[in-house]
Every structure is written in C-alpha cells, then in structure tokens.
C-alpha cells in the first residue's frame, strides 16, 4: 500500500510510448515551451505537463511530455532561450532513445518577431527575422533592439 502510494506520488506524469520528454525546464516556463512547439491540444496530441515539480538540479522544474512528436533543431534552438537547462529525451517504444542537453545557438532565424514597430522586419518586406543570441537575451540583427525579458512573447504566431 505504501509502495503504491509512493508510485502514485512519483508518477504524476504518465510514461509515453513514442515522442519527446522535455525535462528540467525552469519552473513556470512549461506553457511557453508548448507555445514554441505550437501545441495547444487542439489537434488531439497527447500532452502531459508538470509544473513546479521539486527537482535536484533546479529548485522547481517543469516537465513536458508529448506523444508522437520529435523536435526539430529550430524548435530546440528557441527552446534553449527560455529553458537553457532543459534536457530533451527522445522516446521510442517506451525507451529513451536519445538524450540531449539544449545548446544556445549564436543566431535564431525566422522564429522570433522584433518588438520594435519601426524595424524593417515589422513590414511586408520579404525578410526573415534574425536574432543574435546574447548572454542574457537576444538582439535583432536588423535594428539592434535588445530583448532580455519575456522572449517567449516574441515567438511568431
């Protein structure tokens, strides 16, 4: 009985068969991670989210499990901006097939929108947004605007 209680306690989030587990997300950022991946549940994906779960590495962490979905490099790049400590586990047939730490890229292209209304990228011009990744934020390659907070708000719809 006590064993089963302990199991219940641990297994807040059920195992997935095939897909991605994103672990060690900074506490409170899980919904932003889902936003980056464009997952809102409307297409019937099986998604489990744990928020502010106690963690050894981070005081509180979030965890996201997505059934039937593997992440692209672009998605991992942007993920790294808001969840720099995250680990990504690719799961196939219930087994962890590959485990990756995210790496911050030097540049992210086409994923974020510049918040400067006077920037050339905020027009109908055929231009792909490009941000340099700084130690503590991102910087628009075209107008130079620096964003340090709420980077997830810049993710293109």
């Amino acid at each position, binding site marked *: 009985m006590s064993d089963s209680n302990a199991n219940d306690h641990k297994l807040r989030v059920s195992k997935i068969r095939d897909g991605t587990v994103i672990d060690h997300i900074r506490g409170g950022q899980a919904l932003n991670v889902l936003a980056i991946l464009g997952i809102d549940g409307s297409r019937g994906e099986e998604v489990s989210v744990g928020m502010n779960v106690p963690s050894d590495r981070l005081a509180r962490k979030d965890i996201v499990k997505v059934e039937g979905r593997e992440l692209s490099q672009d998605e991992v790049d942007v993920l790294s901006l808001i969840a720099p400590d995250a680990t990504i586990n690719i799961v196939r047939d219930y087994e962890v097939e590959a485990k990756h730490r995210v790496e911050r890229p030097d540049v992210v292209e086409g994923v974020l929108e510049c918040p400067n209304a*006077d920037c*050339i*990228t*905020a027009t109908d*011009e055929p*231009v792909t947004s490009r941000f340099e990744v700084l130690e503590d934020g991102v*910087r628009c*390659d*075209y*107008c130079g605007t620096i964003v340090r907070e709420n980077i997830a708000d810049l993710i293109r719809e």
Partner: protein
Amino acid sequence: MRHDHLITSKQLSRADIETVLDRAAEIDADPEAVAGKYAGTLLGLLFFEPSTRTKMSFETAMKRLGGDVVDMGSIESSSVKKGETLADTVRVIEGYADALVLRHPRQGAPKMASEYVDVPLVNAGDGAGHHPTQTLLDLYTIRENAGLDDLTIGIMGDLKYGRTVHSLAYALTNFDAQQHFVSPESLQLPREVVYDLHQEGATVREHDDLDDVLSTLDVLYVTRIQRERFPDEDEYQKVAGQYQIDLETLEAASDDLTVMHPLPRVDEIAPDVDETDSASYFEQAHNGVPVRMALLDLLLGDSA
C-alpha cells in the same frame, strides 16, 4: 576598404576610418586630381525621407568625381506609392546604377536592402538607427579642428532618437576619446547604444547639465531636440531651453572649443555663436562633399 556596403559605423575599424579621412584630405587639397575619374558612373539615390544636406552632398560628390546621379524622386511620385517593396525597388534600381545611396524611415532597411543587391549600398540614415556617412564627415571635422585622440567631447541634445549621435559615439570608441553625454533624462542614449559602447570598453558618462562638463570639452556636438518628442509645448520649452547655447554659455568654455551640429538647427545654437571661432557647423556641412567623394572613390574603385 574591404566592405562592399556601408550600413553602420560599427563595421568601421580605426584603419577604415583613417583611410576614408586621409583620402578626403587628399581630395580636399586637390579636387582636380579626381575630377572626371568616374565619368560615365551613375549613383542611384533612393531617399524615402526628406533630406537636403545628405542628398545634395552625395549628388555634388558624385558630380565632382565626373559621374552623375539617377534619383528615384519623392515617394509620392514613385512606384513605392503603388505598394512596391523596398526589396523590389533596390533590385530594379541596381540595374540602372553602379552604387546606391538609401535613406529610409525604418531601422535596418539598408541592411535588408544590401542583402538583395550586388552593387555597393550606402546607408544615408535609417530611422533612429545609424547615419555612418554623417559620422565620417563629423570625424573629419573633429580631426581637422581638435584631433581624434586625447579628445574630450560632449554630445548634447536628443541622444535617444538622434541617429547621428549613435553612429558617432560608436565610431569614437576606436579613438582615445572621452565621451560625455548631455541630455534630459527622457532623451538619454538607448540602452542598445550603451550596450555597444560598453562592449567596446568605453565609459558612458551621462549628465543632465552642460555646466558639469563644458569647461573640460574640446568639442561640443549639439543636436536638435524635437518638439514631437514631448507631450506638450510647455514641457518642450522648459526642457529644450536648457540645452541651447549662446555667447553667454560659451564664456565658461575653453577658447579652443569646437562647436558642431549636424544641422538643420532651429534654436539650439543662437546666431551670435556663428561669428565665433568655435562655430564649425557650416565647415562640417561642407566637409560632407570631400568625405563622400572619398567614400565613393573607395567603394567604386574597389568594386570596379
């Protein structure tokens, strides 16, 4: 120079800057030596915003080199009015001209445009962003009057939106220059510019009162505070009044002070200053021609 385009002063090293200024000095001393050098060469002018000095001095520079200009004209009379993108406009006009000069209200427009063309493209001002050719003529004027090393300069006025200020402050990090930034708090340097200056190891000294530093300055670079930056007329008058200079202001300054202004001025510098030895703003405007001749010579010479 190793650059095909001139988009911001950030791309210019000290050696690049000195190459342009030295060439400008040669041209200034002997303009006949380059007269006719670029006969048959055409410079495309694309000004999406009004301009007098920058546009006319580019035109003068190209014609003094023996070349000519093709001008898009005002946007009201161009295909831009029909909704053409900038990316299309520059690709069309690069077929007519050997180099392009672009002024645009959007920050980053010249950078984007440069990605679409093979001919050299020069940024002639992009919104509140950069104005690198103004910076080159500013540096030329400073070098002629005070020298670029062991320099103490005060930059005053609208430091937030003033693109000439952003470009100049960045370029000066290549030299042994102490920079003082004098402005109302609401018009201080944007944090992006402060970040860049810090990255280059510069100290950013900000003041709200010119009297704090005036007596130490070799150069005072004055810019216009625009009315539209303030919510009401009273507030504007109150603030702008503190950043105007006249003969009385200059009593506290060194006799050797050089006073500069990118122009146009409204009332930041009283007309009585014009007659002093300090006044260098008309000379500064005239320097736009040899400096732009030098720049065009270097860009066109390399690309030929």
